[in-house]
């Protein structure tokens, strides 16, 4: 028997808004609400609203929480000086393979981690196996909405007047039992809001009435790729290290005595050099780059890890895993034909404009 699909608190609201649903990590979620490209453009130009309640949320409390997180995350949560401050970070295995990428928030009490839905068990299990009796680990069943776009904060403030427009990026505040964070996965300004399931439909309908465009997973994927943000399971996984996924910047090597899991393997690979790297690709002709396509360079072969047609740029872009020394022109095998592509340094789009640099 197939396992029953999980539904979010916004399932009915999404269906009523015309959502075409898709299955993702065991959840029924909106893929689009009519046009994925129109939703993408709404987020770049104004504000879009995503149901991301499938994300896994863990709260850690007690005196053991800080030492545990300093051990299992590549970023040092001790650097989170203030309540509400957030950090994009990674959880690695002993070989420095990426178990997941996540956001860590310092809360009034303890810490909150937001992990990918597909890695709920992997992350939860990793934490549980290492948490001592002085750490309380709780998986929270909350709804989560992402309101994203240049008008997102203004729109939220007009409706709720909470003061989120004074929040700095990667900082969160509370509003009653809601958590409002200036984070996201689109490259735009905006909020991610974690709240009790019972409150979610009311928030959804109020923001949609105020002009936020319902947006689905399809637009979320094209927005994140344009912004140069990687997706776990495609652009990185438990067999790739941060050095191979363009995520060296997330590693906090200082203080040296912080022995986070994967550190030793990373230090070794950093000294020897990683065999592959994640590159940006821009397709020169027509067509669409998609995950799994072979990439040929003078320095060897690689593979597209995720590719899209970029609605902002009007052509196809991708991430590809290639030999670290790859440079110059590349070719991609698309449906058996070789097509020219350029190697570039992401992000592809910033503030609605092309932002990549050719390598």
């Amino acid at each position, binding site marked *: 028997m197939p396992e029953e699909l999980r539904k979010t608190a916004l399932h009915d609201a999404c269906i009523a808004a015309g959502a075409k649903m898709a299955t993702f990590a065991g959840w029924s979620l909106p893929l689009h609400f009519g046009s*994925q*490209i129109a939703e993408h453009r709404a987020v770049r130009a104004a504000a879009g609203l995503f149901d991301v309640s499938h994300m896994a949320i863990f709260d850690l409390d007690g005196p053991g929480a800080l030492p545990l997180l300093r051990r299992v995350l590549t970023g040092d949560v001790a650097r989170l000086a203030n309540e509400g401050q957030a950090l994009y970070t990674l959880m690695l295995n002993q070989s420095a393979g990426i178990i997941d990428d996540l956001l860590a928030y310092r809360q009034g009490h303890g810490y909150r981690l937001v992990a990918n839905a597909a890695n709920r068990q992997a992350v939860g299990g990793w934490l549980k196996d290492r948490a001592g009796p002085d750490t309380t680990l709780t998986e929270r069943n909350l709804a989560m909405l992402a309101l994203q776009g240049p008008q997102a904060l203004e729109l939220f403030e007009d409706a709720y007047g909470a003061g989120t427009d004074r929040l700095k990026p990667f900082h969160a505040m509370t509003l009653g039992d809601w958590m409002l964070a200036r984070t996201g996965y689109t490259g735009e300004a905006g909020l991610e809001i974690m709240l009790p399931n019972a409150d979610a439909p009311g928030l959804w309908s109020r923001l949609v009435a105020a002009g936020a465009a319902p947006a689905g997973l399809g637009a979320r994927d094209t927005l994140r790729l344009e912004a140069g943000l990687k997706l776990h399971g495609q652009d990185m996984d438990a067999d790739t290290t941060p050095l191979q996924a363009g995520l060296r910047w997330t590693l906090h090597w200082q203080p040296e005595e912080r022995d986070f899991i994967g550190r030793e393997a990373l230090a070794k690979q950093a000294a020897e050099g990683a065999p592959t790297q994640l590159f940006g690709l821009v397709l020169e002709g027509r067509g669409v780059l998609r995950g799994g396509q072979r990439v040929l360079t003078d320095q060897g072969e690689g593979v597209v890890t995720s590719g899209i047609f970029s609605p902002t740029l009007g052509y196809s872009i991708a991430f590809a895993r290639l030999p670290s020394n790859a440079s110059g022109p590349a070719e991609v095998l698309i449906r058996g034909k070789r097509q020219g592509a350029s190697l570039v340094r992401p992000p592809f789009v910033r503030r609605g404009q092309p932002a990549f640099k050719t390598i």
Partner: protein
Amino acid sequence: MSDTPDDLRYASTHEWARLDDGGVVVGISDYAQDALGDVVYVELPEVGQEVQAGEEIAVVESVKAASDIYAPVGGVVEAINEALDDGPEIVNQDPYGDGWFFQITPDDETQLEELLDAEAYAEQCAAEQH
């Protein structure tokens, strides 16, 4: 429910065909455009190209996937819809009108009769959805 006009014939691979002044105009069905999502690129055959019924002669790329388009009848490609080059979204907006793909001068018009009628095609789509 998707729209399946009665005056067209359909291939099981989701192309529609309409006999129009001796030529067979071909596009993809409303069901197909809806399943594909936003169309971002259409690779069309060459004018003058000889094609066999059932031959892959075009590709439609959507936000979701690339799909082959098959010639519903054999013959010679007489015209292609160049408007799709700059406006692939027309396929979503008007699949049976301005969103046509190409026109074939058929070797034999009776080949159209081998395609599905609207009722049979609608039944196939309903079955695919379940």
